[in-house]
């Protein structure tokens, strides 16, 4: 079917009153789930799955997809307001988003997150509609060596996330890599660093570390400095709460960057929104004119990762719908849902069920508009949280963190771990170690180890496999280049000094 007729047909499906209603229910639930840390889209969709058995499949997939991309809109809320990352993909948003809130620009940060989500989310759907089949073929050319190179590129960003000391950033990243190695070795089934605890057999949940190090570390650190009761200044008036025209202009590149990086990484079955958001943040910082201000509350630092996070949804649906291959946890359960409704997701799904595919695509355009309309008015409302005095706000952050961690796993052991990582976050702050590299190392560690070992198994132990494949060679060279940037800086400074004397 031709794209235009397909889309028109899709809109006729999506605009049926019942489907419009399901779309709204989906994005509304998604927003709520996104705002609450812990309970993520996979859990929500799994719980609603039994309800969908009696629904019309088009309405059901429209609603479940609405939860999926709707949750990504709300994910940034607690990151920006409380430094509590709601999901793994909004960890990067904490870096500049929370600093913006501390400067009284929480509204602008929340607003730009919603706008970037809308722009990139829509671009993601466009990509899904226009280039899905050829892109799926490209994604298949990615295998372990390419994933290793992609993650090395991600890890090289450590030098960009570093504060004053590159050495401390590298040490923090190393710690993150070590935490990632805790659990059962997937290749030999050997337990590593589990200290005899069966709770550690499947490793430490990423979100426990992120919430502990970011949110609890922040609360502990601030309690020590005894900030005044009026912690953050909050401008009054609706206009001051939303991003300004200048903000939008500053974010032009971030919108494009987030949209493209997010979509491309999303199409890779081994990608994921966490890597997408880190990569787009790194790219944004690398090309920015005010690189040195990143980490102090720069608006592009919120727009780029939030955009990437949302455009990733469109990308992740590409392998799911064109090949029947799920990349992330949420797409895996969408696949299970399609099977339970009696469909056979696979390479022939789109040609055989154009109603469902085009109805879904059209509903995602509508859903993204709904989300923007739903989220922008919520911005001033959520921003009011910061009017609370610290003796209310800090216990609130602690409570939100603990409920978030417990609702994700239902494990008391994880709550204990949360406290441990909160202390770690506090110590790192005291000793001036940056937290972002630790989280980056943790996010990439196990995937990187796996990809490297898989590559070496493919090549029977020869490292040349990493550089003999073109895509992998290009990305590894880029990673090397990024790692060398600080050295160039040092060299330049030395040369200038030499010239002066």
């Amino acid at each position, binding site marked *: 079917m031709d794209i235009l007729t397909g889309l028109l047909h899709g809109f006729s499906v999506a605009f049926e009153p019942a489907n419009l209603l399901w779309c709204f229910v989906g994005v509304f639930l998604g927003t709520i789930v996104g705002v609450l840390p812990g309970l993520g889209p996979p859990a929500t969709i799994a*719980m609603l799955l039994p309800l969908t058995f009696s629904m019309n499949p088009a309405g059901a997939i429209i609603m479940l997809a609405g939860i999926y991309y709707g949750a990504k809109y709300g994910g940034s809320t607690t990151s920006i307001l409380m430094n509590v990352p709601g999901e793994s993909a909004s960890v990067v948003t904490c870096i500049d988003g929370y600093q913006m809130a501390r400067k009284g620009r929480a509204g602008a940060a929340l607003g730009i997150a919603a706008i970037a989500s809308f722009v990139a989310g829509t671009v993601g759907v466009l990509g899904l509609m226009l280039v899905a089949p050829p892109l799926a073929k490209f994604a298949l050319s990615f295998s372990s060596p390419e994933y290793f190179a992609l993650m090395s590129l991600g890890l090289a960003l450590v030098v960009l996330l570093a504060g004053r000391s590159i050495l401390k950033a590298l040490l923090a990243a190393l710690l993150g890599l070590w935490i990632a190695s805790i659990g059962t070795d997937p290749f030999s089934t050997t337990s590593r660093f589990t200290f005899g605890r069966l709770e550690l057999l499947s490793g430490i949940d990423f979100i426990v570390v992120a919430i502990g190090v970011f949110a609890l570390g922040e609360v502990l650190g601030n309690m020590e400095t005894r900030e005044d009761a009026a912690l953050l200044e909050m401008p009054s008036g609706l206009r001051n709460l939303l991003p300004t025209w200048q903000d939008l202009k500053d974010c032009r590149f971030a919108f494009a960057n987030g949209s493209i990086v997010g979509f491309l990484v999303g199409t890779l*079955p081994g990608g994921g929104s966490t890597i997408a958001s880190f990569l787009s943040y790194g790219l944004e910082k690398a090309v920015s004119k005010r690189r040195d201000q990143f980490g102090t509350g720069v608006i592009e630092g919120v727009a780029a990762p939030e955009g990437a996070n949302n455009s990733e949804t469109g990308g992740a649906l590409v392998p799911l719908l064109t090949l029947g*291959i799920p990349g992330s946890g949420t797409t895996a359960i969408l696949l299970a849902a399609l099977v339970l409704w009696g469909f056979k997701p696979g390479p022939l799904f789109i040609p055989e069920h154009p109603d469902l595919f085009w109805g879904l695509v059209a509903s995602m355009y509508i859903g993204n508009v709904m989300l923007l309309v739903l989220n922008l008015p919520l911005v001033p409302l959520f921003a009011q949280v910061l009017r609370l005095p610290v003796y209310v706000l800090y216990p609130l952050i602690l409570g939100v963190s603990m409920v978030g961690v417990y609702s994700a796993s239902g494990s008391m052991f994880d709550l204990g771990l949360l406290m441990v990582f909160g202390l770690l976050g506090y110590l790192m702050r005291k000793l001036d170690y940056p937290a972002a590299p630790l989280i980056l190392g943790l996010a990439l560690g196990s995937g990187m180890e796996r990809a490297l070992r898989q590559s070496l198994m493919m090549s029977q132990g020869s490292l040349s496999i990493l550089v003999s494949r073109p895509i992998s060679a290009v990305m590894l060279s880029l990673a090397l280049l990024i790692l060398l940037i600080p050295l160039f800086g040092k060299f330049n400074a030395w040369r200038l000094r030499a010239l002066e004397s």
Partner: protein
Amino acid sequence: MIVRTVLFVLAAAGLATGALAQGYKPARPVELVVHTGPGGGSDVLARALAVMAEREKLLPVRMVVVNKPGGNSAVAAAYLAEKRGDPNTVGLFTGVWLQTPLVSAEAKVTLRDLTPVARLVLEPAVIAVKADAPYKTLADFIEAAKKNPGALKQSGGSNTSRDNVVRQLLQKATGARWVFISFPGGGERIAALIGGHVDIMVIEPEEAGEHIRAGNMRVLAQISEHRLPGFPGVPTLKEAGFDVPVVPQVRGMVAPPGIPKANVQYWEDFCRRLTRTPSWQKYIADNQFEDGFQNAADLTAFYEEFTGRMRDILKDAGVKIVR
């Protein structure tokens, strides 16, 4: 004093038989424990099962799915072990529950430490290659692997998964040798095969079906005792000339330890009635599973035989066995 005690014991015994005669029925909503997070294979089955139980009115109460992820099923097994004697909790086990205690010292609870109730499903599998691969039969592949030991590659799950066990058995029977590469996600395994990065894989028939129809994959053999309805033209391992044991992937129900016999019978009967409902049979057919119902006694015997064989196979594969 003695008389009083005797009377008391008699009364207690009378009460107990009275309770038994009435039979056990869950009085509160039943917790159905699974070892995956929401959205995992067991979780989806559990939620579908809860809906079927409600729709077919198999239970007087509701069934609530409880996720106890972690420890490759060890956390869920330990949770059930803690619920000793609890009449309102049951769990869904899979092959992982049988294998993890064999290889992880931390995973102390085996199926024998719990109360096996019934086996529900057997999941067959097929052996597939990319559609443009030169191998037309499994024998072709084995020949190629013999000529070039260690050069061909198989994508699969962890090294205790059925995928690897099938490889071990075939390698042992034929003397051929190829590499096994673990991919944690099912999607990545398929992507590696149809992207041409590996040569062969063990895949669920339902998943393979669509890739065959689209012309991406070819099936060489099926890991099943009988030919599956979806693959009438594909030989079973035995028919293809490889006399290796068929390794089943199982799913079934397990209860906490220390529950009365009446409870076991109740849940066994629940499973039996469940497997006879049209909704269940449609579910089995849609997924190309085999109805693998077995009662508690047979399941226990199956468990002994299965773990015994598994221990040998994994030992051969170089995996460290801890119990």
